């Protein structure tokens, strides 16, 4: 098998008649977690949802490969079955379907549903309709719980920490680590021992305090404009804002500005 979990090649995506993704290429190796930064409306969620295969996202050019297989035309459910999982930024309430009912169907590994629900403080929500009347934090924990039980190889997380208080971000981070097999020591000299990869959208970067990541991208206006070490890129954004990233990209003189913008494509 290829050592690449996800490869996106010159991807162009249209949503509701508007081109939102404008020629994006990147790869996530097996065992690695990448981060997607970017201002609101830059197309981060669109990219994640296109990789997952939601019907509203129309690929007009480019290809998506999952573990070497071209999945560009594969329907949503089949991508999920192949091993791609997503956490929703705004999960809808699924009236009439109990959380436990779905978890029983998703159960794809030895994970104990009750135990995992308790760990994520969701044990009292198992018999409730999915997301119906859940608080913001409960929805996020419900998403991570579902993913742990589903056990995908590629984990797409859309702002897993937004609207979650600090104490619960730590809890979420712990189980996102579990989802991404962060407890498995990843020795690249010995080959890949970790079989999970992740792509995480974060607005604030808080989740990086708990989830180690390997690489990050900055997305602006449908393009990846910067690529580099997650904490360095985050620091750059915190200090100078996204405007700077855009400017830096536009000037195309990035190599002369070492230390401001990092490694680029």
């Amino acid at each position, binding site marked *: 098998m290829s050592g690449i979990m996800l490869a996106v090649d010159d991807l162009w995506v249209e949503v509701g008649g508007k081109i939102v993704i404008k020629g994006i290429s990147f790869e996530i190796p097996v065992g690695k977690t990448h981060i997607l930064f970017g201002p609101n409306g830059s197309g981060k969620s669109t990219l994640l949802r296109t990789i*997952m295969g*939601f*019907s509203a996202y129309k690929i007009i050019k480019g290809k998506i490969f999952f573990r070497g297989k071209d999945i560009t035309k594969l*329907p*949503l*459910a089949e991508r*999920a*079955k192949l091993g791609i*999982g*997503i956490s*929703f930024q705004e*999960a*809808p*309430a*699924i*009236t*009439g*379907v109990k959380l436990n*009912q*779905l978890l029983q*169907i*998703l159960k794809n590994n030895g994970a104990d549903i009750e135990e995992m629900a308790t760990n994520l403080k969701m044990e009292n929500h198992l018999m409730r*309709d999915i997301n119906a009347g859940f608080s913001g934090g409960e929805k996020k924990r419900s998403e991570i719980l*579902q993913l742990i039980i*589903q056990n995908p190889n590629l984990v797409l997380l859309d702002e897993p920490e937004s609207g979650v208080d600090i104490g619960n971000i730590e809890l979420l981070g712990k189980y996102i680590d579990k989802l991404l097999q962060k407890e498995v020591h990843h020795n690249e000299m010995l080959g890949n021992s970790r079989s999970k990869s992740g792509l995480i959208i974060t607005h604030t970067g808080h989740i990086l305090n708990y989830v180690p990541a390997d690489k990050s991208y900055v997305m602006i206006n449908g393009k990846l404009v910067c690529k580099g070490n997650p904490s360095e890129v985050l620091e750059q954004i915190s200090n100078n804002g996204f405007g700077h990233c855009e400017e830096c990209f536009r000037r195309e003189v990035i190599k002369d500005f070492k230390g401001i913008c990092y490694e680029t494509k």
Partner: protein
Amino acid sequence: MKQNKLNKDDIEKMELVGLAPDDKDRAGTFTVIDDEIDKSKSKTEGVEILGLSQALKKYDWANDYMWQLVDPHKDEFTERVWKYEQEHGPVGQFLRFKKGMISKEPFQSCFFIKLDRFVQTVHNIIIVEDEAEFHIITGCAVASYVNSGMHIGITEIYLEKNATLSYTMIHDWAPEMIVRPRTGIRIDSGSKFFSNYISLRETKITQMYPTARLVGEGALVKFTSLILAPPNSIYDLGSRAYLSAPNTSAEIISRVITKGGTAISRGNIIAEAPDTRGHLECNGLFLSDDGNIDAVPELTAKVRDTDLSHEAALGKISEEKLEYLMARGLTRDESTQMMIKGFLDIDILGLPPALEKEIRYNLNLMEDEAL
């Protein structure tokens, strides 16, 4: 008319609408096949069950409960039953839940038709005395070869003071069956009445408008219906509540699905006394390009101190919700089924667990077939 004996096939159909053939876990049983009483049996001293004709002979006062809550001249269907009764005497049950008695085990009744093109006219009187708490499961069905006919059921339900009755009715008719139940309910102070109606099968037309009169302070009524209208079937269903005493409340909830048929969901709450509350809710789902759903809510306030509301939402299953489940690896069909089963969730009926489990099982069988 000599009735046929029930065969295995008939019993299966009766079981599907909630009848336990051996009376297991039941407080009693009353069944009518065509126009004859097949079984009338009480298993507990809290329940008196008689054929209605028999009850009228036994108790002078029983006649006081006849045609009080349903007007015999209301329409051609009530008229038909009324005339039948003048000639032959009534066919149906006289069911009395005695004062202060409580049972978690439901009383069951079943009205079954074995003759094709038969017109079944039944009349039921149900009295729940002070402080009694009971459940009724009523099933109506036809033999598998029956295609057409008519069922007219007059049901008059009296709840005395501080009594509770849940009345769950499951129908399983046939493509050319005309179904016209006529039901009146009188609810006295502190009493609660829960009506649950489930029908997922073909019918030519099923039309009813049960009407509850809340005449005593603090009385409560809740009507819930779960309907699936297959192609060529018409369901015209409504529920009405008169809030005629202070501090009474009514809730009318319907979940209707069309698979090509017509589903009309009506509701009418009339507030005539202060400190009353009423809510109407209709959710309608399309599973096909054909068919139609009408939600017709009516609220009438005759007093200032009342709180009446209604909401309705009609449409197809939300694509966003379907894709939420599909993103977890369920196919479109699996996700749709899951959403529909959730839509027709009997959790909302508030039944005792054993009965709920049974009905859930039957409902699943019927849903699988309907979908």
